[in-house]
């Protein structure tokens, strides 16, 4: 066992655990997006960043890929972490304004305005479908094509891959197309939360993804 400090609390973790896993064993909520139990950590959405304190200096690291190690000092909700997460959410929402999950997460983090130009590309390239197809279905029919902003999820030669068994897992795991936000008019890039005004206990999104949205639930919509 190793011992690290998360938000001031001493946390014991097993060798090989990530900081995210160690935090969760103690009920410390770190929002995630591209992380999914059963799939390899990918570390690309940067929503789960935490502050790693090393003496007087500190840096931000994605907690889903950061190995828990002896003596590590972690802050999961410092102002620096919050600022980074908010900007990340704004970037994600300006790419994919119709994702209900993203809208919910942004609301929970206190994002009040998306200041970037809207792009409406839908896919946020979290890679969940690619990893699900490869690691859970042992298929590998999906992959990334291109680089930079022209990067997209695709199949070989853009044809229906032979490996595909129509399991639908890629669609199920997708944070954008699983449940689209039905709001017609976005105000400042946000949905306004009107459609989310349901009690936390019966909201299917929140109960399913409480690990993502966090224990704070729908506080901001009251």
């Amino acid at each position, binding site marked *: 066992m190793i011992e690290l400090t998360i938000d001031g609390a001493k946390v014991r973790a097993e060798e090989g655990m990530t900081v995210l896993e160690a935090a969760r064993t103690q009920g410390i909520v770190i929002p995630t997006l591209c992380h999914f139990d059963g799939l390899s950590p990918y570390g690309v959405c940067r929503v789960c960043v935490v502050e790693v304190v090393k003496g007087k200096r500190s840096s931000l690291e994605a907690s889903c890929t950061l190995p828990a190690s002896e003596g590590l000092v972690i802050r999961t909700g410092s102002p620096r972490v919050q600022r980074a997460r908010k*900007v990340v959410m704004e970037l*994600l929402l300006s790419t994919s304004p119709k994702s209900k999950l993203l809208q919910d997460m942004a609301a929970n983090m206190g994002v009040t305005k998306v*200041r970037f*130009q809207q792009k409406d590309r839908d896919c946020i*390239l979290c890679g969940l479908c690619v990893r699900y197809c490869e690691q859970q279905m042992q298929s590998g029919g999906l992959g990334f094509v291109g*680089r*930079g902003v022209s990067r997209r999820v695709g199949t070989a030669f853009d044809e229906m891959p032979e490996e595909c068994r129509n399991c639908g897992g890629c669609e199920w795991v997708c944070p954008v197309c699983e449940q689209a936000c039905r709001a017609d008019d976005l105000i400042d890039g946000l949905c306004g939360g009107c459609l989310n005004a349901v009690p936390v206990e019966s909201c299917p999104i929140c109960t399913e993804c409480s690990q993502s949205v966090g224990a704070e639930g729908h506080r901001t919509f009251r």
Partner: protein
Amino acid sequence: MSRLEGPNQIAELQREILEKRGKFGHEIAVCGGPGCRAIGCEEVFRALRDEFQRAGCGEDVHLKWTGCRGLCAGGTIVVIDPGGIFYQGVTPEDAREIVEETVLRGAVIERLLYVDPTSGEIARAQDEIPFYRGQTRLLLEQIAQLDPSNIEDYVAAGGYAALAKTLDRLQPAEVIEEIRISGLRGRGGGGFPTARKWTACREAASSDGTKYLICNADEGDPGAYMDRSILEGNPHSVIEGMLIGAYAVGANQGYVYVRHEYPLAVQSILTARDQAQARGLLGENILGTGFDFHIKVSRGGGAFVCGESTALIASLEGKIGEPRPKHVHTAVRGLFNKPTVLNNVETWANVPLIISRGGAWFAGIGTESSTGTKVFSLVGNIRNTGLVELPMGTPLRMIIESIGGGVPGGKKLKAVQSGGPSGGCLPADRIDLPVDFDRLAEAGSMMGSGGLIVMDDETCMVDFAKYFVEFLAEESCGKCVVCREGLDRMRDILTAITEGNGTPESIELLEELCEVMKDASLCALGATAPNPVLSTLRYFRDEYDAHVNGGRCPAGVCRALITFHIDAAACTGCGACARECPEGAISGEIGLAHSIDAEMCIQCGICRTTCRFDAVMTD
């Protein structure tokens, strides 16, 4: 070509070659660097060869290629020995005169010599040129002297002696100790102490004992070609450095990851590898000592991000060239999950020098924390563009004024950008800064791989930052959100500012986005990408404000924000601008001052470049 069977045979071979060489009467060296090739040195070489044949010089004359001579602004460069006569700007038409006058009659052709633009002094040999006088050319002088396609040239100049010394007399730990004493830091940008990397790899456990060495030759910064020149001009120094490194860390397999866009460098390293193998300097049982080391040459597909160590390793493994989180150093778990030492071309090329002359000698050059020399590619608005090599800690002013010859065209220096697209800008009033890893970082820039872009006062710093952000947005691998989307939005904001649609809030948002990108990116490409914006915001904030608040571009670059007019006092009425204007927006009678119709003008700037009297002005 015979195989060498023992370390002491290197010195024997060197003696043999030197005896054979002594017989040549003349040696004519044509620069084959990237700059000279672009200007057509291959035709010069052919013309010289034909002229020698015609004159019947045959055995007496040795015509050869060399690597880059550095003074790329003076291409094609031809140097004639004895005498070291340095001809620049040579064209194929000059070949006959060079052969008849200089080689056969020993006369110097004055018009091909270098004339110092400030003092008007004529330089006969390389050492007399101010550009070379101020330099400490450890790596570059080898490149300028050697024929890269001939291993004998390298051995004659003392090459592979460091390898012989290593295998004959040094223990691996002693090699690393020598590197530690030298204080050598990685030349690829990060400046990580080389000895520490090697020690970590040496001590790292590998289940089957396999360890790897990688030479990073994926140089991709716009305007930078140091590594290219070294690999093209002196590939054996890189191979020798890798051999010594492999012996020190216990590796038997090395890779040279070189850009596909550098075909000559690829060819050069392949030829060198084959020659070294044929001589028993590479492969199995090197120099009869039982030490094995193999080198594979791998070509990169042209992604800038593959210069990043983990992306490069992914690419070598046959995967998509994308970085991964670096929580475990590549020295412990790198290529194929084995301990791996990855160093840049220039770092490897320094290793044989350190082993030959000693770590203390190397540490005596440069500053305390940054030792040795660094090769810079000096480009942009500067008179002597080219490659220069200087001790670390040389003030920027010396590089720009004495070596670079200053800014041409009577314009003023505005800023210097160092470290490639991820580096930062330093304003003209900071040019007394000594250039080393730490001073540059303190000033908000970085050493990077050694690119130096000089800008004159006609450069708009917002436009400049936009250029680099556009480059990086194209080259981002797109894996992590902050870098991919962040650079894209940064480009949007900068475009809006240069088009006059910026607001004070857009500058605030830009700053916040920059800070978050620095903080939260997955790899160093994203984390350093905001540097051009942050450093221009730090030193040229007023220029951003002028774009946003005043709706003007002080440098007269951003077309949406400028209007052109003609200074009636300076205009001679020649009519040249009116003839060139694509919109027919300029009118006036010949001999009288012309004027521009602001309604019709599209701000293309053709009139300004056409005018020989500097009469076209911008507001």
